[in-house]
């Protein structure tokens, strides 16, 4: 299988002397056409990894290639072959859906004769065509997320990065997004890189997953392989076993303390 994302000791450190290790010596390979999930608790380094692989920030050390292009030397080429749904993107709320997609298409150099048709297709796909001229400020959160995914697809990139694609959505919108991701992976042959801390989403969608904690990749494989490695029964249990969790007893300690006092 062809490797489309390859990272080599990819690291991003912050603070004096680099004491904050957002991403630490990440070695990772993602194959063409697969849906890969990067799992981790909040602050584990998922978003930083995505930003590094999309050339939004520069690594402290190490490097990576995306579709064969080096993220340090060929950032413009990397950006052309990737689409990004950021975790908290700033939408231009004073633009209509059509205007926003037109803007994004122009940023990615989509020829104008193709752009109009593609915007129409995407808006139809996301069932927003009849609302194309409404300002984004009036859209629901789910509708905004659809527009943002459409904007990540506007230049038809072979690799799609989705950072927490369903975290802010209601169950219906989340289901729709999940179906779309499946369709993109199966029918359009896209390589999809999903970052999430929502385990069922990753479990349902991803061919392979990596678990990252405190900047380090600590597990890699299929869901079944990771469950087997940790000798647990579910991905949730495996995740807690790998990343550590808070015991119920600890959570309720204050009650015991109080009842002991009285």
């Amino acid at each position, binding site marked *: 299988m062809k490797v489309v994302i390859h990272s080599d000791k990819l690291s991003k450190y912050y603070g004096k002397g680099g004491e904050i290790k957002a991403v630490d010596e990440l070695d990772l390979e993602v194959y063409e056409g697969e849906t890969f999930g990067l799992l981790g608790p909040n602050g584990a380094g998922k978003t930083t990894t995505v930003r590094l692989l*999309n050339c939004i920030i520069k690594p402290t050390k190490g490097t990576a290639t995306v579709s064969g292009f080096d993220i340090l030397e060929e950032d413009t080429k990397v950006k052309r072959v990737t689409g990004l749904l950021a975790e908290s993107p*700033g939408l231009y709320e004073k633009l209509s859906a059509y205007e926003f997609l037109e803007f994004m298409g*122009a940023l990615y150099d989509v020829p104008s004769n193709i752009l109009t048709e593609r915007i129409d297709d995407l808006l139809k796909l996301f069932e927003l065509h009849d609302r194309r001229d409404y300002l984004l400020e009036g859209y629901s959160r789910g509708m905004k997320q659809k527009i943002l995914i459409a904007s990540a697809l506007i230049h038809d990139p072979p690799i799609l990065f989705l950072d927490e694609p369903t975290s802010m959505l209601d169950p219906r919108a989340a289901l729709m997004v999940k179906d779309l991701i499946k369709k993109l992976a199966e029918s359009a042959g896209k390589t999809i890189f999903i970052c999430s801390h929502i385990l069922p989403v990753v479990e349902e969608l991803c061919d392979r997953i990596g678990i990252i904690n405190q900047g380090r990749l600590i597990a890699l494989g299929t869901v079944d392989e990771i469950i087997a490695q940790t000798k647990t029964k579910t991905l949730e249990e495996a995740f807690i076993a790998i990343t550590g969790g808070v015991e119920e007893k600890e959570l309720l300690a204050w009650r015991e303390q109080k009842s002991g006092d009285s």
Partner: protein
Amino acid sequence: MAIRKWLVVAKNEYRIRVNSIRGIRPYFPYLVTGLLAVYVAFIAPAFVSLFVDDFIAFFLSQFALAMVPIIMFLFFFYLIILPITYTLQGMQAGRVEIFLAAPIKPSDILLGEFLGVTPFYAIAITVVAGFFTAALSPLGLDVLQMAITVIIFVVTFLSALWIGTVIAALARTKFAESARGRDIGRALSLVLALPMVAVMYAIIGGGLPEALANPGTSGTVKAILGLLPSSWGAELVVSFAFNPGNIGAIGFETFTRLSGLVAFFVAVLWLGTKAANRAYSIEPTTFIASRAKPDGYFYRAVRYLGGGGSFGTLLVSVFKNYGRRLENLSRIAYILGIIIMVNVFFVRDFTDPEGPLIMAQFLFPFLAVFIVGQVAMHGKESLFIYKKTPNGVGRFVKAKLIQGWLVAVPIATAITVISLIRVPQASLIPLLAYVVIIILLVAANVALALGLALLNPQFSESARAQMSGLMVNANIAMFASIGVFIGSLIALDLGIFSTLLLQNTVIWLLAIIFLYLGKRKLGRIE
């Protein structure tokens, strides 16, 4: 051929700015161009013709040698801070991420953002330049001198806007990533205009025009301002006024000053594009998380004032939430700055206490609104916390009122005492009486401001929307205060002390009514 990226960004910026007039968007440029043409060709000359002798005398006076550079400096400074203020008030890091993920150079983003808003600034530039050319025209300037005058305005103002745009982009990178940074940004946006206000007050009431009539003072001011690029063109305009239709007489000066101005513009453009890489980044700029210290004497005293129990805790919480926002402190700093400048520039010659007290009528309602006028700024959800708790709404209003008094009253007292001490003929007992009356009046203003804020809550997160809401309430409070004061002074002729007493009574009554209505409204918000 792919469209140039800066043009894509510029088009997008323009679209966002004209969003509110979508219905007439296609005709907007033609409409504005037509209106500006009418202004330049007819309105500005017609206005100038009303005062033509004054304008001619002005341009040919010693005074103009320093005044024209001062006016240009004010415009220059204003156009620098305008984009900075606009950016600091509504920073969003997310949009930067959209750009950084796309194949576009930072210099193209910067240039696009600048060009996208330039048409709107061009309107202001045309209005100012149109007025100046109309004022200079009766002096007999030839076509070349007029054209150079227009070029001076365009280049000077575009340089200022470009500098402002670059600084705004750098500031966004510095501040937008963290909540603390955004707070600092909003705080800075409020006080940036103060130096400009100081110069304007000095012109209007501070005797600057009289001082500039003196060649020595005028020469010093001119020499200092001459270091700034805003003066290079301004001094050339004054030279044109002294040599109308005779550009040959000042050919070398024209060449050097104009070349210097154009070179400055090119240099700042170049430096700005070089700074663009640093202006578009979402790398975290700080990892320092703000940490609360244990309560000191002040908060313990506030808790004690609140009765020490659960209400005391609530009062301290309300106070902390207020005091830990630099934006709130900056509002106080802003209004204090205005009060100080008013006292320095406008209240210089008062020999009795009435002057400072009348000035207080204008400014203390603003102080009150700036302190308690944003009860709803964190959205309905934050108010629902109080609605959910037993007697929460009443206790919240009470806590906010006491917090407002604890901030506003000491400030107003200090200002009043300092103002009155400057009055040479005043004796102690009447001064103390005036101070007490002002304290009561400020307390009433706080209650009125809180009532107004509750009655017309501003839920928007936008700093601009919040500020416009505040200004509406501040003007209502100010006109209520002044209206009652002047109305009773003229109609009843009671003398200033009795008028202040009557005013106190009326403002307190209004405050109680508005506070009651506001509290009721808060209880009914859904």
